[in-house]
């Protein structure tokens, strides 16, 4: 190839003329579509190309978005990545002390309560920047959580054994006692929630000979207290506030502190040096019992199939709810029209539900109904109208006839169950 650079004045002209029909193609050929905005000049000075900043708006006018998240431009994906990576990485090599947290991990993931509790643990650990403590999380059984570091955990002890499955307070207590013997954390924090910490935390406190603070919802520094912290706890069926020094074991309520959102911690795996002695258990877990979903209160049901005006085949709907093992709910229209009982109504005038999965069949999503399902985790909508509010709220929306889709769903579930029975 010759060293002489040849110019094509016509192409340059097209490249300058952004209204030319071939403008974009020419830009792509010239490589200016992805032209560098900033580069290091030969003298070590940052050079900028102001012409490469921004994008052409819909009216053919150049727009510059200075927020960093360019809309029409190419760099949108990169900018989003940068926004996610704004957390500061923190590694604590030699902690002055440990704050042990036992999250409840309902459904295998850190719950909001767990994250609040870890925020509280971080407050205790980071109080003195000269001598930072480390937050140790003790996790039992299998989990699906990936964001332990984001939640503020420095050391992660994962105890995965069949002995800890189900209701095994004695085995878990033996493991925590072993952690106490070997690592001697300065604080033990557990969530005061019925499934997780309320039971285990009280057992642990008495095993350690401590009088725990239960229902803690606030902590503040207190120089006179033995651990340097005072706490406010709820007592007497939520009617009293007890101010007391923070003991070694504390059971905290939800929203006791802000969750960690500015730092990312190491979550280094940690294990015990000695084996955990196996505990003799006098309690045997025979597993969960099948509960009639119709008997479960709507407000605490886990899985709700809810019907609205779009449901025409009511027998099919009831059959689907029975096969799926779901509790039935309804929108106001379905109740007013007499298809469902009044106590099944979901929404502002009915029940505020907390289901993990809410399957809305033929519900367009009036604002009163959407209020009632605010705290549901996953919402699935089946609807004919792709523009309705329920579709906007839903995590998964299927546009189509509700009767057909429910029938197909029932057929699939029954087919699978039948297959399992044949295999077994």
């Amino acid at each position, binding site marked *: 190839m010759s060293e002489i650079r040849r110019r094509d004045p016509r192409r340059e002209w097209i490249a300058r003329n952004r209204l030319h029909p071939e403008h974009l193609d020419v830009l792509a050929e010239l490589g200016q579509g992805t032209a560098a905005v900033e580069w290091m000049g030969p003298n070590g000075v940052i050079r900028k190309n102001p012409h490469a900043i921004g994008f052409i708006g819909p009216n053919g006018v150049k727009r510059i*978005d200075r927020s960093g*998240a360019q809309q029409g431009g190419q760099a949108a994906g990169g900018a989003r990545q940068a*926004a996610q990576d704004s957390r500061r990485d923190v590694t604590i090599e030699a902690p002055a002390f440990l704050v042990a947290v036992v999250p409840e991990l*309902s459904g295998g993931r850190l719950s909001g309560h767990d994250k609040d509790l870890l925020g509280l643990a971080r407050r205790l650990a980071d109080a003195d920047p000269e001598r930072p403590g480390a937050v140790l999380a003790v996790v039992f059984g299998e989990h699906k959580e990936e964001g332990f570091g984001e939640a503020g955990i420095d050391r992660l002890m994962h105890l995965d054994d069949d002995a800890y499955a*189900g209701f095994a307070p*004695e085995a878990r207590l033996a493991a925590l006692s072993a952690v106490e013997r070997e690592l001697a954390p300065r604080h033990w924090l557990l969530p005061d929630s*019925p*499934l997780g910490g309320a039971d285990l935390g*009280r057992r642990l406190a*008495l095993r350690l000979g401590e009088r*725990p603070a*239960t*229902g803690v919802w606030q902590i503040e520094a207190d120089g006179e207290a033995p651990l340097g912290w005072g706490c406010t706890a*709820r*007592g*007497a*069926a939520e*009617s*009293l*506030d*007890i*101010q*007391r020094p923070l003991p070694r074991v504390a059971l905290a309520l939800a*929203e006791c502190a802000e969750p960690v*959102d*500015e730092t990312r911690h190491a979550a280094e795996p940690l294990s015990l040096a000695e084996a955990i002695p196996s505990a003799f258990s*006098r*309690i*045997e877990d*025979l*597993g*969960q*019992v099948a*509960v009639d979903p119709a008997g479960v209160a709507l407000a*605490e049901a*886990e*899985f709700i199939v809810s019907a609205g005006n779009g449901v025409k085949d009511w027998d099919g709907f009831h059959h689907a709810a029975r096969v799926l*093992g*779901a509790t039935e709910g309804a929108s106001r229209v379905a109740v007013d029209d007499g298809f469902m009982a009044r106590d099944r109504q979901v929404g502002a005038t009915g029940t505020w539900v907390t289901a*993990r*999965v809410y399957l809305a069949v033929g519900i367009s999503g009036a604002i009163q109904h*959407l209020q009632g399902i605010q705290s549901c985790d*996953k919402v699935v909508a*089946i609807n004919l109208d792709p523009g309705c509010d329920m*579709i*906007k709220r*839903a*995590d*998964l*929306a*299927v*546009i*189509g006839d509700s009767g*057909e*889709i*429910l*029938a*197909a*769903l029932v057929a*699939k579930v029954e087919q699978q169950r039948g297959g399992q029975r044949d295999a077994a």
Partner: protein
Amino acid sequence: MRPEQQGVEVAVLVSVGRHPITGRARRADQDARGLELALGLERQLPGSRVSLLHAGPRGEESEAALRGYLGMGLESLTLLEQAEGSDAIPALAEHLAAAPPQLVITGARAERGEGSGLLPYALAERLGWPLVNGLAAVEKVENGVATLLQALPRGQRRRLKVRLPAIVSVDGAAPVARQSAFGPARRAELEATSVPAEPDRELAEWRLAPARKRPKRLKIVKAASARDRFKAAAAKAEGGSGQVLEGVSAEQGAEAILKLLKEEGVLR
């Protein structure tokens, strides 16, 4: 009735409750549910004996509250008389150790005082008995082993086998207590014995105040740029990040829903 099926001895620990609105003494809700459970057990296993136990001061108000339990159909209540503000755990543990029942039923937490819910755990630790919390029902008692149903969140139940003697605590999932009848409550007996008591010094040192309303958590937006702040302020509460399947067949739609239900683990 089979001959080997014998009754069990059940002790129900009761406390003086507090009406949530008026603040008057009443029978505590959870303890009354515990007693209801014990009475149901008595009907289920003939030959069972239910005894009531309370440790605390004897006053006009507390006596009226305790008679609320007697009005549910019992003839007597054992009252371990202590001064106000003393620790009930040693007295109860001593009394239970002297004549151990097979099953001790308590409420999960008291409605007065610290109300930490520690008492059943402290008794279990002292006596070395197993403890089950959140009891919903006793299914059967056979050969010194009780089969229990434990209440889980979201209306679920778990079946447990526990070796007796054991302590169980009940909360809102247990059957609702029957009404208390006034006449039988007046006629029933309070067997009071005075027991030595140590004052609860730690509790006396704490500052107790009527509960403040907890501050509502604010939605704090930590955005680097004005654009993000504006978006956060102007955004609707629900994000439209969901997946929409349009123009698919019923089978494909059902497949997608089934996949989600399986991922969430709600299908059994």
